[in-house]
């Protein structure tokens, strides 16, 4: 496996995405939400949210806790009735007034919510049993589902005898055994340790491509979202602030919030000074920087804008420089050892910055300038 568990998955993911792109014209909406609002008392959990998930898509809803992502999932499943909802359509049929029990989607709950008084197999069979499927058939289907999550052989165990990772798999098997149109996953990996989480990410991706089911996946981890998704919807305060491919969100955040959430370490507020075809220029505290515009609307001269640069894109002394690079005088601050890399804090005239040093052998003892390429400088809207 790759050291951080990411790149290997990205390959398979890229392949899946190409296939989807080819079928772009044939894509049909599996899930459609239009103008959903929900309030818990005076708290607005969802503000006029609209969202579409296509057939076979892995759609991730990414956001902090309290951003409304779990509420969306509960509204889709029917466990929560939205304060107002124009359309909640699954497979083209409006299910806004259909109770949860009759919606063609199942949920993998954050706490798994396995039935403690039933065996693993009874848990998995439950969705089939309420549909009146004969015992022999449902046992066969349950064992198939358990095999799919690599838990065959533990069918007779009690839930209390399973580890956290195994419970997670039972919850997954229980949800997919009824072959729903949409599988809803509510931070299913939240309670697992690091290594198990990465392993489960791979398995979920594999399961997704094997089943061809539409997955709607909730997480607060941008790493999880980037690794697994076809598309990501970023939520903030009950609204979807950006939706797009992992690359869109990672490279082209459309707001300062999105940039910060997607891990841009260095973000500075300024004003737009110049706009050309490819580039914009932003003025921060008297310094002009060139970058590429990624805001959610067309840029306007003089508008408030943010320049965002990832720490690993900052170049210190000794690195190869381009003529068009943005540069800034700086002095070195403290360093933070992070294992695979070292973070170097810098003091500059526009404020503190953070640079990432991967190659520790070539660390310079004195640092006086920091520079970065305009392509690595994202200029975005507030």
């Amino acid at each position, binding site marked *: 496996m790759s050291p951080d568990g990411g790149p290997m998955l990205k390959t398979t993911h890229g392949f899946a995405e190409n296939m989807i792109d080819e079928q772009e014209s044939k894509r049909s909406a599996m899930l459609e939400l239009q103008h959903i609002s929900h309030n818990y008392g005076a708290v607005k959990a969802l503000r006029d949210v609209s969202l579409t998930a296509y057939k076979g898509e892995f759609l991730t809803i990414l956001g902090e806790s309290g951003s409304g992502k779990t509420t969306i999932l509960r509204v889709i499943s*029917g466990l929560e009735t939205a304060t107002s909802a124009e359309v909640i359509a699954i497979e083209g049929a409006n299910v806004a007034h259909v109770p949860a029990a009759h919606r063609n989607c199942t*949920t993998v709950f954050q706490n798994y*919510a396995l*039935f*403690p008084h039933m065996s693993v197999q009874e848990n998995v069979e439950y*969705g089939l049993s*309420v549909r009146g499927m004969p015992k022999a058939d449902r046992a066969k289907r349950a064992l198939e589902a358990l095999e799919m999550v690599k838990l065959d052989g533990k069918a007779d165990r009690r839930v209390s005898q399973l580890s956290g990772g195994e419970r997670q798999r039972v919850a997954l098997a*229980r949800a997919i055994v009824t072959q729903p149109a949409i599988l809803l996953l509510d931070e299913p990996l939240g309670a697992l340790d690091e290594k198990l989480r990465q392993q489960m990410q791979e398995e979920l991706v594999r399961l997704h491509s094997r089943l061809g089911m539409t997955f709607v996946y909730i997480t607060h981890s941008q790493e999880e979202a980037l690794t697994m998704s076809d598309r990501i919807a970023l939520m903030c305060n009950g609204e979807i602030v950006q939706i797009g491919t992992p690359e869109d969100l990672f490279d082209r955040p459309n707001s300062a919030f999105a940039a910060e959430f997607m891990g841009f370490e260095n973000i500075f507020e300024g004003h737009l000074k110049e706009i050309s075809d490819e580039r914009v220029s932003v003025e921060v505290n008297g310094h002009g920087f060139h970058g590429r515009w990624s805001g959610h609307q067309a840029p306007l001269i003089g508008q408030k804008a943010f320049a965002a640069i990832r720490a690993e894109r900052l170049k210190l002394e000794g690195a190869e420089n381009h003529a068009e690079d943005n540069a800034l005088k700086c002095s070195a601050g403290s360093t933070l050892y992070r294992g695979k890399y070292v973070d170097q804090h810098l003091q500059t005239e526009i404020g503190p910055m953070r640079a990432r040093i991967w190659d520790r052998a070539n660390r310079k003892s004195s640092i006086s300038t920091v520079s970065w390429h305009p392509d690595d400088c994202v200029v975005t809207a507030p």
Partner: protein
Amino acid sequence: MNMAGIPLKSEAGKFSTGRYVAVNGWKVFAKACGIFAIALTYAPLIWLAVMSFSSRPLSGVPYPLSLEHYRALTRNPAWLEPFASSIIIGALVAIVCMILATAVGRAIPRARRPGGLVLFAIIPLFVPGMSMGAALFIAFRTVLDLKLGYWAVFFGHVVWALPFSLMMVLVIAVRFDYRLLEAAEDLGASSWRRFWDVEFPILRPGIVGAGLFGFLLSFNEILRSTFLRGTEATMPVWNWMMAASQQSQVPIIFSLATIVLFATLPILGGFFWLLFVKLDKD
């Protein structure tokens, strides 16, 4: 034990030596209390069973042994009706308490302010039996002008047993994870299936416990029954009347109490075992 204890003491130093002794002292004291309580409970019961076979039970000497009181029981079937009515009333109280306690016990944790409701529901536990009996007597007999009898005893027993039964259900219901019902609903279960497949099996120990307490409390009840029985008699009332009448019936009561003890104890014990040991393991 001492052999192991002495070197430990000398090694452990002054301060912890004191603690070691104190803990040991507590253990001995707790053991003594436990043995005393157990003896106080079981010794009289065993003595009762032994004396029921004595030809002169009030003499305090078991010998000479005899089955004559048991024979007297079969000759004189007057106890059969009170016994049967106590069993029937107890069973009905158990069933009604199970149903009511389940319905209310499920609802209370879902209420907006469960604390006040619980308090309100269990206050009858602290109402003296004499007051409750007299109050029900006045309500039934003089206010509603009804003829008292078994039915009034039944109502009185339900009022008495219900708070206990409710507690049995509540102990389990307050820990019930409602997300399990959401999971069942999400998987397509109707509201009845959600209750029957998920909630009921998990609440079952509390519900069966509610029934057991309902039966036991009714079967043993005497204070409220004396107010509400009219001219009928339940088993405890009949026993009390026989014992109080200073007739030669007392030895029969010994035999009867022994039969009741050995009939009910294994059944209830088996129930508890099934409920808390067997089902828990499964």
